[in-house]
């Protein structure tokens, strides 16, 4: 038997209400899209098994409520995230403007140790809409990416399944890299030391 270390990647999806966070996840995990709008309240996750470079991973995607009044318990679930996806709606200026504050909020709440290296991904969703309804063009999006530290950017349509897999592939890879970089962090060593202390007491039972 070989040591099989199980990898669970935790990914948080953030953005204003109605930008299509739930729809993106549904398209990626269940290959479904619905025109109906069901607002997300609190936080909810979907899991999907993936193989990345011959490695089995479980990706746990946390969908969040864009309407903050629905986060009554706070956002403790940000903790332990391996990647954060920031979503805006290309037909909605305001959602674009809010991306930066979503990122800042995440960094504060998730207690990220190295904010500079933490992987973020930017997604501009709903590119299937008519050109005249589009408010954010590619150039403006690139500006935002640069401002956010040259993070990867994808333009997607959850409705027509455009660029979904490509985007989430990068999400998963970056999350995996992040997870592996943390694995040998202090948490592990700390725990081993204490394990030695605790052994005597747990042995008895």
């Amino acid at each position, binding site marked *: 038997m070989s040591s099989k*270390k*199980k990898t669970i990647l935790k990914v948080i999806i953030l953005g204003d209400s109605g930008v299509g966070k739930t729809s993106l996840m549904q398209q990626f995990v269940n290959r479904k899209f619905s025109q109906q709008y*069901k607002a997300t309240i*609190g936080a909810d996750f979907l899991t999907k098994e993936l193989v990345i470079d011959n490695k089995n991973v479980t990706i746990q995607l946390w969908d969040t409520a864009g309407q903050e009044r629905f986060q009554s318990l706070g956002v403790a679930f940000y903790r332990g995230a391996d990647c954060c996806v920031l979503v805006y709606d290309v037909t909605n200026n305001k959602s674009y403007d809010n991306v930066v504050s979503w990122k800042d909020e995440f960094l504060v709440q998730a207690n990220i140790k190295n904010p500079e290296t933490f992987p973020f991904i930017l997604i501009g969703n709903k590119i299937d809409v008519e050109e005249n309804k589009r408010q954010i063009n590619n150039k403006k999006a690139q500006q935002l990416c640069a401002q956010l530290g040259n993070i990867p950017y994808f333009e997607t349509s959850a409705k027509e399944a455009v660029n979904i897999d490509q985007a989430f592939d990068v999400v998963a890879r970056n999350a995996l890299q992040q997870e592996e970089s943390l694995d040998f962090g202090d948490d592990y060593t700390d725990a081993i030391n204490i394990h030695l202390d605790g052994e005597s007491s747990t042995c008895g039972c």
Partner: protein
Amino acid sequence: MNQALDSKTLEDSLLIVKQQITLMRKCLESKNPQFMDALKHASTFLSELRTNKLSPKLYYELYVLVFDGLAYLSDFLKESHQTNHLADLYELVQYAGNIVPRLYLMITIGSVYMSIENAPKLEIMKDMLEMSAGVQDPIRGLFLRYYLSQKTKELLPTETESELKETIQFTITNFIEMNKLWVRLKHQGHSSERERRLKERKELQILVGSNLVRISQLDQIDKFYYKESILPKVLEQIVQCKDSLAQEYLLDVIIQVFPDEFHLLTLDDFLQSTLHLSEGFSMNKILVTLINRLIDFQKREPANVKVIISELSTLTLQKDEHEENHTEESDSETTKPQTSSNLFEKFYDYSHLLVENKPELNFKDLSLILEAICKLSLSYYPQDYENINKVFGFALALIHQTTQHLEIWEPLLKTPICYNFDPKLVLSLDDNYKQFASALPTAIQSANALYILEKFLEQDVRLSTVEEVKTLYELLAVWFTSEDSSDSNTNSLLFGTDSSKNEPDESPEVVSQYEALAKSIHLIHHTNPYKHFELLEIAKSFMSKSGSRVRYTYPTLLFAVIKLIRKLTIVQKLNALKLKQFCQFFSATNTELLTLVSNGTLQSEGGVLAQTCMNLNLSMALILDQSSHIDLSYEFFINSFVIYEESIVDSRLQFQCLLSIIGTLHKCRNIVNGNEDNFDVLISKTALYGSKLLKKTDQCRAVYLASHLWWIIEELDEEDEIESETAKTSEDELQVVIKTDNKKVLECLQKSLRIADSCLETNVSLELFVEILSRSLYFFIHGNELITIKYLNGLIELIQNSILTIGEENTSIDTPTKHFQRTLEYIRQQAQIDSRFEEIKDR
């Protein structure tokens, strides 16, 4: 509980959980997995969840970490279920010592078990649900059940109808149980802790709501199933729990997590149930949320909304027929209000029901609800203006029941104007709206009036019917009845000039209101100028009620009349009879303005207004001359003179007015030709006024300018057609001679020269001399034979002497000297093209 202690407890627990997760993972991930040891570690960290020392938020932090830890256990079990028989394991953990760790482990294993093919899913679900009842502490129980819901969400069976039923049953039961725990928390602990309990309950609400999310995620549920089998159960629980926090929150969740179509279909049920909610329930929040959601739906998918609505009305029809067939049997059921498929009516009828059934509802809530209903109508039925009038009819009835806090109604008042502004709608607002407005404080009415008017001006909305003009001004009624202005009007009329308390100094707000009102006159428009005039008369009938503030609006009104006459003159459709009407209207209005001046209401401002009145009169005189109504024109000139004599007292204004008179007379053509005697009367008077001005300089200038009135020559461009036979050609320039009177011109110039000479200051005289020289040259060029070379030379000599007397270096004459030099330069230039000039001696 102490916060510092709280977080210390949390830190300790988190540390233990982290260590134990690490240990557990080591057991699971080693070459020979030590599963039982792993379970022990899991059990240890799960024991941390037994704490009752943490607030919900902190407990949640612990929970998140535990949840992540248990995910490793689940994953391990999933992969190794061949070796670890899940059914046995499920039994095994039942023997774990403590209930909280035991149930978490049970759910962890149970959910993996459910994911295995051929597992007795329904039994496992049922068992887990029943076992969960073992934890009755609200916070721990809620989190445990939340865990149950999170772990099973992707595994709930929905293939067959009975499976779907079981799944729904499972979720709804969990929901009901969680809601009970949640409500129970309210009664826990000492009463002094109520505040904190409330806060905690608010934090926990999301856990309860998650069950409804779960149901909304079941794609197998369509809107009919939802209406028949889901919503009634959920609503029943919500009504029964008799807890306003729970009711508010859960209804909000229903609105958010189920699709719009579902709400449209079940609107009646939903609204009905809200009538049975506890006191303290915030009705407006829920209704406003619901309506806003429906409005967003309409904005997002207008086409889809149309389809759904029409589908809905066929459904309603069918239902009605269905019900009619059963009226005899189900008499008791028909007490329910009749429902139509019209969304507006549903909400509107409902708002009445609310008032009847919920006497405790306050006016603030009602105003917000009515505002939302207005918006709903404006987005779903933008053409149904009657809806809005209905809403205001209801609002009017409500506002009559109260005199307090009237300002809460302001947003409702503004809604028909600010929400998707449609001038047609605004002009369809009936008495309900106007009466409603007039029941509010004046300041609010006034602000609203300005708001309306600015919208109309912004969009340049044309008013072209009597109705439209009337309606707009009725909406601005507050400006035409305001106490202070009508007061000052009667006061000043009654008591004449004693107006010490009628300070005309207006606040900037008032000025901007009436300026906007003046601009509104430009919105009035009709292609038929006579109809247009009638509209102006109506406008005036409103404006006239604003006391002394008519001074802001009447001038614009008069100007509009002048414009109409000009228009009619151009198209040569000016009817003499109608013109009389125009003139009467004009004079009457002008007189009213002048009354304000003469009775002193306006104090110092009066002079400027009188000047405006005079100028308007002059414009009228001119346009009448141009339209060949020379008698009328003469009358208006005479009127202007009366104003000049009676109302212009300030010498500076007198001079300005005189310039206007001269300028206007100089432009007249028909009166000169048609009735030269009259014209002569006018210009002689003008010259006389000039000579009577207070300041010598003004006198002198007015008189030499008046000289031009006896010498009117029109120079034509090449393109102009010459109608008159009097056209002469001089050189290659074309001119039409209107009036030339050599003698009178000379008289004027001589007179102004005498006045100039009589000035005490020689430098002032000099300046005037030079100006007179310029004038004289003009007449010389244009052939006035009495202005001779000799005359000019005389003037030049006079000027040169006067410069010598004062002394060339004296700086006080710099300007006139320069002017003189330029004039001489001009003479030299003229000499090159006109030999007559050679005789003028320039030195």
